């Protein structure tokens, strides 16, 4: 019997109501009150600090300092990402259902055993990303001392967890039929992945990786505040000295870096899409 109404309408409505009911108390609990920004006292404070922003610091000595700090930030983010990828790529392949041989002949449903075997890998990925990179950085600053090494290790650990999880999900979200057809013709699982999954997933994977690299740049800045070097350490020093002009220059450098990441992502997506 065909029903006159869309059977999906009621669940959708209920889910929307549930989301609103869950989000509303969150807004109350976080004590969000944009009014504080407009109070006279706070307005004056912000105005004095912000007025020192113009013109941004541009003397040769500071520019050199800024250049070195920018390079260090870039290096920390890139090295951290490289280490993260070394761990994320194999774990994402292990965690993803996309390469299950049984799923290929059961309409995409993996067997009980393959689900059980994937659980420890998923657990590892959850563990890796459950601790924020700033906490890892604090731990590593204690362990290996002040400097970029702590930042690289912190990014490598947290980001491998994030990348591994999202890669695994991207692999599962693309059309599985090409890989299943290859598995059904006797292909191995790794080759089925490279011929059947990756061509459809590559644009998404690259775009997410570049976005994460952008996030790693920001994270390495934040970790600079706890002594992991780079632009973060520099902005911390400048803020303490109320050197608004220097802060402005550093913020411009941030902007430039993120713009660069965005352009790179756009270029790569254009090439791959």
């Amino acid at each position, binding site marked *: 019997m065909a029903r006159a109404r869309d059977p999906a309408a009621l669940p959708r409505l209920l889910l929307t109501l549930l989301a609103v009911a869950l989000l509303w108390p969150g807004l109350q609990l976080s004590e969000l009150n944009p009014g504080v920004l407009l109070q006279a006292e706070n307005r004056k404070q912000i105005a004095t600090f912000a007025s020192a922003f113009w013109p941004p610091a541009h003397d040769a000595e500071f520019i050199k300092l800024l250049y070195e700090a920018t390079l260090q930030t870039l290096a920390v983010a890139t090295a951290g990402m490289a280490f993260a990828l070394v761990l994320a790529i194999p774990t994402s392949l292990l965690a993803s259902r996309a390469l299950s041989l049984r799923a290929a*002949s059961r309409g995409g449903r993996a067997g009980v055993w393959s689900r059980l075997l994937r659980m420890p890998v998923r657990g590892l990925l959850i563990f890796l990303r459950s601790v924020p990179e700033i906490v890892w950085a604090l731990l590593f600053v204690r362990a290996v001392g002040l400097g970029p090494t702590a930042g690289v290790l912190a990014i490598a650990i947290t980001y491998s967890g994030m990348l591994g999880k999202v890669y695994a999900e991207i692999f599962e979200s693309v059309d599985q039929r090409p890989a299943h057809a290859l598995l*059904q*013709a006797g*292909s*191995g699982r790794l080759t089925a992945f490279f*011929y059947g999954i990756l*061509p459809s997933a590559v644009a998404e994977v690259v775009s997410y990786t570049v976005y994460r690299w952008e996030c790693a740049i920001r994270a390495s800045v934040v970790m600079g505040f706890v002594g992991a070097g780079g632009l973060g350490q520099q902005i911390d020093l400048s803020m303490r000295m109320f050197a608004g002009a220097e802060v402005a220059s550093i913020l411009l450098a941030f902007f430039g870096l993120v713009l660069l990441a965005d352009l790179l992502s756009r270029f790569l997506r254009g090439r791959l899409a």
Partner: protein
Amino acid sequence: MTIELHDAGLRHGKVRALEAVSLHIAKGERVAIIGPSGAGKSSLLHLMATAIQPSAGRLELFGEQPWALSARARQRLRSRIGLVHQAPPLPPRQRVVTAVLAGRLGQWGTLQGLLNLVYPTDIPGARDVLAELGLAEKLFVQCGQLSGGQLQRVGIARVLYQRPDVLLTDEPVSAMDPVLADHSLALLNRHAQANGVTLVASLHAVDLALAHFPRVIGIREGEVVFDSPAEQVTEQMLDALYANEQLASRPEQGPTLAVQIPRC
């Protein structure tokens, strides 16, 4: 016997796709499967291709039971079976040459498979099979730029390149014009005859089935209705096979309660 089915049944949840199908297909036989939409033609082919496991009964290929084998041995067995899908599942960004060469992934080692992605290892081989289907000039085009009929021919080219012992084709020419459909079916039959390959094809077009295949199997609602040489298929058999109660105009009886079996 190359393909044997003993009382094989298949269920998708509560929907019955195949019921107690028993078939014997010998090496080198060429068989067409016909029947109305949703009769279970695709299910039967996928069952023979070990793409799905029967929920009842038994399947034997080359005298072995694929679902009793280890996963590794089953993958080896599967590399001897080629299945052409109705809508070939090819990633739109994959180039035709890669899609065709992927036919032999089951025979190649992992390393050769990966090297083939860096640089196609057998361009002449891929060009030869594509040329037979009139697609040689599309060798380095992405699959996403091809039409449905061209994609079907790439799917056929991949299986021809695979050189399997059993060639199963699920509506292989449904998106082609009559001339091309005739040519492609003739090519598949020539290839099967020349190499002693067992060929099983499901077809919508009854005339194509009768013209190209010595043996025709009619299935309806998941059961074999007839299984006979092509020249003995009569008009009455076809009428009974395709008779459709749901389309018959008898509105005074109210809604019919026939079970709708979705195409699979």
